[in-house]
C-alpha cells in the first residue's frame, strides 16, 4: 500500500527498530528508560505495557484522523493515551500484582511518555491504520531493544543475574552503583556513545 504523504508501513516498521530507535536515536521516553532498567523483568514488563498503549493509541488515532481539529489534536491524543494506560495499569494490578507493585508509579507515567504522543503526531494522525500499526510495532520493538540493552548491563553487573537467573559466579560482588540511579545514567551514556561511535565509523567507511 502506498502512502502519498509518508513512508510505507514496512518502512515505518523498520525505521522504528534501529534507524529511528526511540532510545538511542530520538532520545525519547527517558524516564522509564532510566527508572525501570535495574532488572530485565521490570524492563520487559514496561516495554510490553508501552507496546500495548502505543499500538492501541496509534490505531485509534489513525481511525479518527479525519475528525481531528488541528488545535485540539494534542488533547485528543492525551485523552486516548491516558485511557489505554489506565487499562494497562489496572490489568497489571489484577493479573501481575507483584510486578505492578514493583513498577509503582511508572506505569501511570506512560501517559506522559513522549514516544507515544510523538508517534500519534508524526504518523498516526496522518497515515492509514496499517501504516500506523506497523509504525507502533516498530517503535515498540525499538523501545524494548533500548530498555533490554540497558537492563542487561545493569542487572548482570549489579546483581550477577539476568532475568533473575544467576549468570555470573557467586563470587561476583555485585556493583551496587549499577542498581542505583547513577548506574542508569552511566550505562545509558556509555551505550549511547557506543551507538554513535559505530554509526560514525560506518558512515566514514565507504559502503
Amino acid at each position, binding site marked *: 500500500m502506498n502512502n502519498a504523504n509518508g513512508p510505507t508501513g514496512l518502512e515505518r516498521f523498520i525505521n522504528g527498530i534501529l534507524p529511528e530507535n526511540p532510545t538511542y536515536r530520538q532520545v525519547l521516553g527517558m524516564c522509564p528508560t532510566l527508572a525501570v532498567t535495574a532488572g530485565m523483568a521490570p524492563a520487559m514488563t514496561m516495554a510490553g505495557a508501552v507496546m500495548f498503549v502505543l499500538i492501541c493509541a496509534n490505531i485509534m488515532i489513525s481511525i*479518527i484522523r479525519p475528525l481531528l481539529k488541528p488545535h*485540539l489534536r494534542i488533547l485528543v491524543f492525551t*485523552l486516548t493515551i491516558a485511557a489505554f494506560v*489506565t487499562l494497562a495499569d489496572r*490489568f497489571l*494490578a*489484577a493479573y501481575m*500484582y507483584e510486578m505492578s507493585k514493583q513498577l509503582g508509579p511508572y506505569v501511570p507515567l506512560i501517559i506522559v511518555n513522549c514516544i507515544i504522543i510523538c508517534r500519534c503526531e508524526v504518523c498516526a494522525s496522518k497515515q492509514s491504520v496499517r501504516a500506523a500499526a506497523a509504525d507502533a510495532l516498530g517503535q515498540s520493538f525499538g523501545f524494548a531493544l533500548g530498555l533490554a540493552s540497558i537492563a542487561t548491563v545493569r542487572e548482570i553487573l549489579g546483581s550477577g543475574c539476568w532475568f533473575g537467573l544467576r549468570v555470573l559466579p557467586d563470587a561476583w560482588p555485585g556493583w551496587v552503583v549499577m542498581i*542505583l540511579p547513577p548506574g542508569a545514567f552511566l550505562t545509558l551514556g556509555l551505550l549511547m556513545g557506543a551507538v554513535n561511535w559505530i554509526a560514525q565509523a560506518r558512515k566514514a567507511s565507504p559502503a
Partner: protein
Amino acid sequence: MRLQYIKEAWLVLVLGVFFGGALAGVHYQLGDRISRNKLADTLSQVPMLVSGSADSEPAQVGGMLVYRAMDEAGQTLGWVLPAGGPGFADRLELLIGLDARAEKITGLYVLDQKETPGLGNRIVEQIWRGQFKGTQTDRAIKLVKTAPGENQVQAITGATISSQSVTDIVNRSVRDFRAAMDEANK
C-alpha cells in the same frame, strides 16, 4: 457562537464519555480482583507473623482495622496490624504481628517500600526485621547503633533514617492498638 464551540469540541466530549465508560467497565470487571490481590498479599503473611495460626480474618478493634489470626478451633492466637508512615524515600507499609494480648511483637513484615537499594531496602531482610520479634510492647522499642540490649533494635549502617522510620511506625501503631484494645475491653 455557542454552537461553534460544540462543533469544535464534540470529538473530545464524545471520546471522553466513551473512554470514561470503557474504564468504568474495566474497573467493574477487575476491581474485585485487584482488592483480592491486596488482601491475599496481606493474609499470606499472617502465618509468618503469628506462628501457628491456621486462618485469619479482617477485624475491627476499637475502630482500627486489623487482622485476627486464629488456630483451627477459631481461638484468637494473635493480631496483625497494617501500619504505614513516611520512610526515607517514600511511604512504608508494614504488617506487625502481635500475640493475643498484644504484649509481645511476634513478627514484622514490610509490605511496600521504595527505600534506597542496597541500604534502606535492607529493612525487608529477615535478619533485620527479625530483631523486632519478641520485643515487649509495654514500652517503646529503642533504635541503637551498637549491639542491641533488651527491647532494642540495631539500626542498619548507612540507613539510620529507614531504620528509625520503621521503629517509629511500629511503636506508634502498637501503642494505638493497645489503647484501642483497652477501649474495646472496657
